C-alpha cells in the first residue's frame, strides 16, 4: 500500500494543517516509511482479542451534581488572542 501526496493533502486537511509543498513531500515519504513499519502488527492474530483503550479499566466516573468554583470569564479569556465583551473573537464564520 502506498500513500500518495493527494492522500497526505486530504489527511492534512482533516488535521487542519496547512502544509508547505516541501512539507507535503517530506510527509509523504515519512508516512509511507512509518506505515510500512506498522504492517508488522498484521502478523499477529488478534481475532479473539478485546481492544484495550485504557490500562486501568474505568467505567463512568460520577461526581455529585453540585456547584463548585471555576475560572472567571476574565481568567478564561486571559490568554485569548482576541477577546471582546467577554467573548473570544474569531474571523467571521457565518455569512450575513
Amino acid at each position, binding site marked *: 500500500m502506498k*500513500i500518495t501526496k493527494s*492522500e*497526505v493533502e486530504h*489527511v*492534512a*486537511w*482533516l*488535521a*487542519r*494543517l*496547512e*502544509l*508547505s509543498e516541501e*512539507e507535503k513531500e*517530506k*510527509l509523504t515519504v*515519512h*508516512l509511507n*516509511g*512509518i*506505515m510500512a*513499519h*506498522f504492517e*508488522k*502488527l*498484521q502478523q*499477529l492474530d*488478534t481475532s479473539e*482479542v*478485546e*481492544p*484495550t*483503550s*485504557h*490500562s*486501568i479499566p*474505568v467505567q463512568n*466516573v460520577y*461526581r455529585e451534581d453540585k456547584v463548585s468554583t471555576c*475560572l472567571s470569564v476574565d*481568567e*478564561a479569556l*486571559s*490568554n*485569548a*488572542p*482576541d477577546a471582546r465583551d467577554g467573548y*473570544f473573537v*474569531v*474571523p*467571521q*464564520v457565518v455569512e450575513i
Partner: protein
Amino acid sequence: MNATTGGASEPYSLTAHELHEHLVARKISAFEVTQVLLERIAAVDEQVKAYITVTAESALDAAREADERIARGECGPLTGIPVAIKDVICTKGILTTCASKILRNYIPPYDATVIQRLKDAGAIIIGKANMDEFAMGSSTENSAFFPTRNPWNLSRVPGGSSGGSAAAVAADEAILALGSDTGGSIRQPASFCGIVGLKPTYGRVSRYGLVAFASSLDQIGPMSKDVTDSAILLNVIAGKDPMDSTSVDIAVPDFTKALVNDVKGLKIGVPKELFAQGVRAEVADAVMKGIELLGNLGAEFKELSMPIMEYALPTYYIIAPSEASSNLARYDGVRYGHRAARSSDVLTMFARTREEGFGSEVKQRIMIGTYALSAGYYDAYYLKAQKVRTLVRRAFDDAFREFDVLISPTSPTVAFGIGEKIEDPLEMKLADVCTIPVNLAGIPAISITCGFSEGLPIGMQIMGRPFDEETIIRVAYTFEQNTDFHRRKPPLTGGVQA
C-alpha cells in the same frame, strides 16, 4: 558560598532528604537554599540550558513562606525544597510553553493538581524545564526554543522528552524535578543523565493540568538524585483527584516505608527481548551485573521470554499519535496560544495557526494519528494496535504471576550525540524500545544508574505490578545502598567550557 566551584558539601549538591535535615536543624534557611540554587543556575545553565523559564522572584517569595512555616515548626519533607517542573505542567501565573511556539505566551490561569500539592507541601517551584515539543521526542532536540545538553558531556543529548528536568537535577540546578512519561520520557532522560526517574502506575498521579499528549499513556512522576527522594516526592503527588477521573481511588501507601535494604527471596524476571533490539553490549553487561548484584543480595533471578515485546514499538506509534492528533486539535488559535495573522476565514485561521505553531515532529505525529484514525483505516491501525496492547498487558500479567519485578536496560544506549539521530526518526524511536511496553501496560517502573560507559551513565529499569511502586522502590533502594553510582557527579563547572 560559591556556586561555581562545586563540591559535595555545597547545598545545591544535596538530596531533598539531606537538605530537609539541614532545614529542620536551622543550619540553612529555605531562602538561602533557593538563593544558592539560583546562583547555581546562573553559573551553569548557560551550558546546560535545562530551563525555559527560571522563576527567581516567585521562588524567593515561596522560600520566605517556607521559612515562616519552618519557624512555626512545620517543616514537611518538601518544605523549602526547590523543584524544577517540566514545562508541560500548568503553573498558575507562570509561563507554560510545552516547548512549542504555539504556546509561547501561554500563562495558565490555574495550577495542575501536582503543583497545588507541591505548594501545599511548602516546596519551591524554581523553574520550568525544557522538553521535546509537546513531550514528543527522546532527546529534547525537538524543543522549539533550544536543545538541552547532557551535564555529563555537553555534546550529548540529555534524553527526552523530560530532558530539561533530568539535566537540571543532574547538574544540581534543582534538588528535585517533575517529569511526564508517555513512552519513557521520565525514565530514558533519567538514565541518560544518571539520576532516578519513576513512572508511577497509570492513574496513581493526577493528570489534571498536565498538557495532554496521549491521555491513556501519560503519567507524571518524580525525578531525583536518589531513590529516597523519588519516594518522598511520590508521597506528595500520588492520590485520587476529583479533577482527573482516570486517577484511581486506591490507598496511597507511605512510599518511604518501602525504602528497605533487603531483596531476599524476591523473584526477578529478566525479559530477554528487552536485551535485544539494538541494546549495546556495554549496556546489557552493566544491567546484567546489576541483576547479579541483586542476586548476591538474596534475590532470585531468571530469564523469561516475552515475544510480544517486539510489537510494542509499532503499537505505541499508532496509539500515541492517534491520541495526540485528537488532543492537539485544541490548538486552533481561538482560546489561547498563537494565532496566525490576517486570516479571512476561520478554517484558514485554524490551519495556518497550526502550520506556524507546531514543529515538524509534532506535525508528523498529528498526521500519523489522523491517518490511522481516518475512515477506512481505523480497524487496520488503531483498533489493531489496541488489541495488541491487550496482548502486551497480558504478557506482563503472566510474567508478574511468576516474578515480583522485571529488570531490563532503560534505553539501549548511553546518551547519543546532539544532532546524531534527529534526521532518522525510526532510529530515534528505538531509544524508547525498552520503556514503551511499560506505558502500554500502565505498570510502574523506575530507572536507576547501574554503571558508566564512555563517562556516561547507564540506566537499569525495574518494572513492577500495577500499583506496586513499593516493590520497585525497595529493589532500587537496595541496589543504591550497595553501590555508589548515584553519588557520582558530572564534571560540570561554572563559566563557559572550552
